[in-house]
């Protein structure tokens, strides 16, 4: 390793420790932006969880009137939309932000101010979407918003408009972030880190960015067309003017199926980091993991109509989309066998991150298998719109994504905060979550096959639905409680947790080579890499131990300056789109555009570093 001075070394003073609200508003540090994403997304996640608990309370017994049908519709729509766009995606973004630069040995992302812009746009999008509650007009047509339920005729209120504009704003955040991370991963890798040496989390993140870049423009156009139908009187999805509601389904699922991989691939990456570290074995079948990830993403664009078997597309289309969907089981199976192969024969460390990672593998297998079941159109026709589907996608999104992201939270918390989480509370959290999750969602398979439809606010007594619904509601309370344990664990740790060393888990990747939490510039000395598990190689060469890295003064290290233009530009962007919310509010649009333009120009011409 050699010292590489970045930029004008020498005369400048060491960057001062930055504190206070203003420093968070103007930050362009990928680690702070990662924390902002994490905290914001966790709050939205809890909100989505609360919505779920209200739904479960309503369904706990037959014929309950705890929620009106209208409130119920709003809650299940907002629960789905929130968990996908404001929960899982930005929780993944937290890890992208914090750990992609650290794992590739970079000092920041390629475009630090664009990164801050992405976060602020995401925050404003989440706020606009949830502001609908204040107008008693939360979206109420289901998270995939089928036409022509969304037409002015059948949804005259602002509910659909809040959904359109909220998602449109969030889409801009995702696209800006995707460009940034795609370029960061390709261009900012430390010397020696070839593509086939990148940590698996970075690989899966890279594939996720490609999916974001290709899928989000499609939903952007679909949302624009729907907005035009509602506010400008076009008939793209309105049959009375010749429009075809099924086109909405095609456009939505052309985005929607890749979107499920956007939700799960980062989780695959996190688990592929954790299993090797806690098995003390390199990842089994690295290349197979990479190529199966690419294959899943590629196939992901050709299977969207498996969401539309009940639309009646004809035997030819059904056959093609059915076979394509079944084909995806192959690369996914490759991944699962590789995870098992990684753990097999390893010297397993029973730590909390490992519990959650193993929980992920088990739960994801169940969700994956029920997924293959409705790849078959006749089976799908039986299962679609029933609780069987609800069971399936919660096994992949909660049993999959959320278990893996929680594993990541326990794994990387020491690096992000410098404190260890309690192992005892962590394991209590795991068992409560594992039991609560299965009690909540496993019975939905049975209820679905017994004919209980999803999205109906109640059911009559005597239909045979009572018992399992009561169990599910009890399970959901345990599940909710498990997150209280998690919060207590976090707060206790921040206050008085054991201080974390740089490498508490004997990790393999570069983020464990620097102090916990990292200093603002990440790497005092630019690392060079000559293998897939650089830290293990270093440890081996060093006789099994690694010296604790010293905190350095950072004098002469060149960092991007803080800037408030990202938040200004983000505000302008959100404002412009909000102008299209209530019919067309021209002054809002023009003011928003003006703020955006001022923001972009000031940003482009301000000096990028101190």
């Amino acid at each position, binding site marked *: 390793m050699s010292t590489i001075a970045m930029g004008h070394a020498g005369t400048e003073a060491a960057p001062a420790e930055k504190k206070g609200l203003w420093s968070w508003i103007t930050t362009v540090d990928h680690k702070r932006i990662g924390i902002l994403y994490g905290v914001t997304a966790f709050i939205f996640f809890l909100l989505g969880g609360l919505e779920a608990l209200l739904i479960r309370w309503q369904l706990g017994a037959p014929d309950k009137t705890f929620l009106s049908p209208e409130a119920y519709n709003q809650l299940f729509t907002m629960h789905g939309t929130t968990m996908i766009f404001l929960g899982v995606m930005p929780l993944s973004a937290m890890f992208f932000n914090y750990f992609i630069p650290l794992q590739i040995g970079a000092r920041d992302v390629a475009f630090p101010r*664009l990164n801050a812009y992405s976060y602020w746009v995401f925050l404003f999008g989440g706020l606009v979407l949830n502001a609908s509650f204040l107008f008693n007009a939360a979206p109420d047509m289901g998270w995939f918003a089928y036409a022509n339920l969304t037409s002015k005729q059948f949804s005259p209120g602002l509910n659909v408009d809040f959904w359109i504009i909220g998602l449109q704003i969030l889409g801009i955040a995702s696209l800006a972030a995707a460009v940034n991370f795609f370029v960061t991963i390709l261009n900012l890798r430390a010397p020696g880190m070839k593509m086939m040496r990148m940590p698996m989390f970075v690989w899966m993140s890279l594939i996720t960015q490609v999916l974001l870049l290709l899928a989000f423009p499609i939903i952007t156009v679909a949302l624009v067309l729907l907005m035009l139908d509602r506010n400008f009187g076009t008939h793209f999805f309105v049959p009375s003017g*010749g429009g075809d509601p099924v086109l909405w389904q095609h456009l939505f699922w052309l985005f929607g199926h890749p979107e499920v991989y956007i939700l799960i691939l980062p989780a695959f990456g996190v688990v592929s980091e954790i299993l090797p570290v806690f098995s003390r074995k390199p990842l089994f079948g690295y290349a197979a993991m990479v190529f199966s990830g690419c294959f899943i993403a590629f196939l992901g664009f050709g299977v969207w109509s498996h969401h539309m078997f009940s639309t009646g597309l004809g035997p030819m289309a059904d056959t093609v989309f059915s076979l394509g969907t079944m084909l995806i089981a192959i690369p996914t199976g490759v991944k699962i066998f590789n995870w098992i192969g990684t753990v097999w024969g390893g010297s397993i460390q029973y730590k909390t991150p490992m519990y959650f990672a193993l929980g992920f593998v088990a739960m994801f297998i169940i969700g994956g298998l029920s997924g293959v079941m409705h790849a078959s159109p006749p089976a799908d026709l039986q299962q679609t719109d029933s609780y069987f589907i609800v069971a399936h996608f919660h096994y992949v999104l909660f049993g999959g994504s959320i278990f893996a992201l929680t594993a990541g939270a326990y794994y990387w918390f020491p690096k992000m905060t410098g404190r260890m989480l309690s192992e005892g509370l962590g394991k209590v959290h795991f068992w409560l979550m594992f039991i609560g999750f299965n009690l909540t969602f496993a019975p939905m398979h049975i209820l679905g096959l017994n004919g209980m439809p999803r999205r109906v606010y109640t059911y009559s007594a005597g239909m045979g639905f009572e018992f399992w619904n009561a169990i599910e509601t009890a399970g959901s309370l345990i599940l909710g409680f498990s997150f209280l344990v998690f919060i207590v664990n976090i707060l206790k740790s921040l206050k008085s947790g054991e201080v974390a060393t740089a490498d508490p888990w004997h990790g393999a990747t570069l983020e464990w080579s620097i102090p916990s939490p990292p200093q603002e510039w990440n790497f005092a000395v630019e690392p060079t890499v000559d293998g897939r598990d650089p830290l293990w190689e270093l440890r081996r060469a060093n006789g099994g131990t690694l010296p604790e890295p010293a905190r350095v003064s950072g004098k002469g290290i060149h960092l991007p300056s803080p800037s408030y233009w990202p938040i200004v530009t983000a505000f302008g962007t959100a404002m412009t789109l909000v102008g299209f919310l209530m019919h067309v509010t021209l002054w809002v649009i023009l003011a928003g555009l003006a703020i955006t333009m001022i923001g972009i120009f000031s940003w482009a011409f301000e000096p990028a570093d101190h």
Partner: protein
Amino acid sequence: MAHDTAHAMHPPTATGLDTRKLAIWTFIGSECLFFATLISNYLVYKGHSLVGPLPHEASQCMLHGEMTACEPIFEIPLVTFGTAVLLFSSFFVVLALNGAQKGNRKQLIGWLSATVVCGLFFIGMQVYEFQHFYHKGLGYTTNLFGSSFYTLTGFHGAHVTIGIIWLVTVLILALRGKLPPEKALNLELAALYWHFVDVVWIVIFPVVYLMR
């Protein structure tokens, strides 16, 4: 965005490609899907309009409050000329970039101005065309053809407008002498985007105007 990279002072990137250029290419890749979706939308609804006017054939349509016979909407010569102008502007911006890289101020400013003028002409042509079509009975919500045509070409026009604003910004930099050869990349990025906008039109022109 002009200087926004933590590693601007640290040129050898892992791929050897400039970070900003790679970002523009990535963005363009994403934009391809945006226009592909809009073009698909136009094609899906081609021939599905319930009333006239229609792109290539005479039809019955509502004009001044009564149903009358309407002529086909498209008039190919004008738009062909506009297409040619936009195509030439792509050529001009290459000459401007060449001037910027060589440090030839005259060549840079001359060709860059020509590019901007071509872009403005194209937008003018589009505004005239929209007005003309409107007077021939094709409003925004008249039929699916009108809605999908105006949406597609309108979004393209918006992209051209953003391109013009970007090029004018670079032109002002050049006029102030702030575009020396080592900063020619600032023009190259705008030029890449401009080429993309042209290429999209090269797809739209035959698919929308020529294909029957």
